[in-house]
């Protein structure tokens, strides 16, 4: 359970960062920066990160689902947690909630220095 929880946190943060970067940096640059400018080209090249996001998200979905079973999340929260990988920034809040709840329910599994 602890390993699953840690894996979930790491994956959530990677998915969150990739999604935030793709949707809030690469996407606007690609379409809003002046055509042919350095920034626009960077946005276009950086769009390849969408593929990375997609694949990490795939792993995230599996791990989040397994965790949802063990931690007995409500179906609504499970769906929210899975969808959070597709809605920019939401996943950070979800990860926070999950961690909060995990620490509250399993204080024995959490090391005291956890931030």
């Amino acid at each position: 359970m602890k390993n699953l929880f840690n894996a979930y946190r790491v994956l959530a943060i990677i998915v969150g960062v990739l999604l935030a970067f793709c949707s809030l940096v690469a996407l606007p640059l690609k379409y809003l920066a002046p055509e042919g400018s350095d920034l626009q080209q960077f946005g276009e090249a950086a769009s390849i990160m969408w593929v990375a996001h997609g694949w990490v998200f795939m792993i995230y979905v599996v791990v989040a689902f397994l965790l949802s079973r063990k931690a007995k999340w409500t179906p609504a929260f499970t769906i929210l947690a899975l969808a959070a990988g597709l809605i920019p920034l939401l996943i950070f809040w979800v990860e926070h909630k999950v961690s909060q709840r995990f620490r509250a329910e399993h204080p024995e599994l959490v090391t005291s220095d956890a931030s």
Partner: protein
Amino acid sequence: MRISLVNQGIGRARTPPYDQDVPRLLAPRYWGVHLVAIVAVAVAAVLGAWQYDAWQERRAAEAVDLTRLEPIPLDDAIGPDDPFPGDKVGQPVVIEGTWVPDATVLVSGRELDGREGYWVVTPVATTRPDGPALPVVRGWTPSPDDVPAPPTGATELVGWLQPTEGTGEADPDPDDDILPQVRTADLVQRVDQDLYGAYAVVADQDGVNDGTDGLEQATLAQLPDVGRFTALRNVLYALEWWFFGAFALFVWVRWMRDETADTQTGPETHATPETDSEGEPAGTAGEGQ
């Protein structure tokens, strides 16, 4: 039909033999769940197939060697205002028209047998001398100082049709006649007429056309790779979609198994979908730990 199954299922829900679980799952209150699951699986499968098709199409367009086909008239392949036809990459076309020698440019960064050199590009106006023009790669030269004078007058030649380039590479010196790519935006500043959304690489080195004199044959092998990465992206997306489809299927089957397991192991009540995942410790029979 369904109704009778449902009634039967509910009636025996308390102590069902295993084979009665299937009818129970067909109860109307579960129809929404099944519908969502079926839609999710179907949508993922279709989107995956769509990406897979796109991947195959791109690969086919890339892999098919059109260069040995019979030349077709340029007009049959592309009109002056048409977007580039994706299935005509490398198609030999017959280009008739008039050279526009003043618009001759060099395109840098072209290799031939490992040597860096330049393409020599002169547009051909297809209908009238001031009509729309198609940039034609006449050949390759190792040095920009060693370019034969551009041809003039009427011409008829066969060339391999290519989509214009344009990954946005900036022209380091916009004032000279050397471009980094065969790009309409740069070329259009050097002609008075419209340009096609394509260019051609001269194919008939043995033909009777003065445009290639003094130049080495530029071949399609010298073309930069186009679209390979994008095509790879398509297949990666296809795999992702199918994965999500399989995942939805897995969750669905899993849920059905839990539902039926609940009725077998849970003596006092049968779990509703809402309490299934969240419910009391004994609720999730398969996963409890």
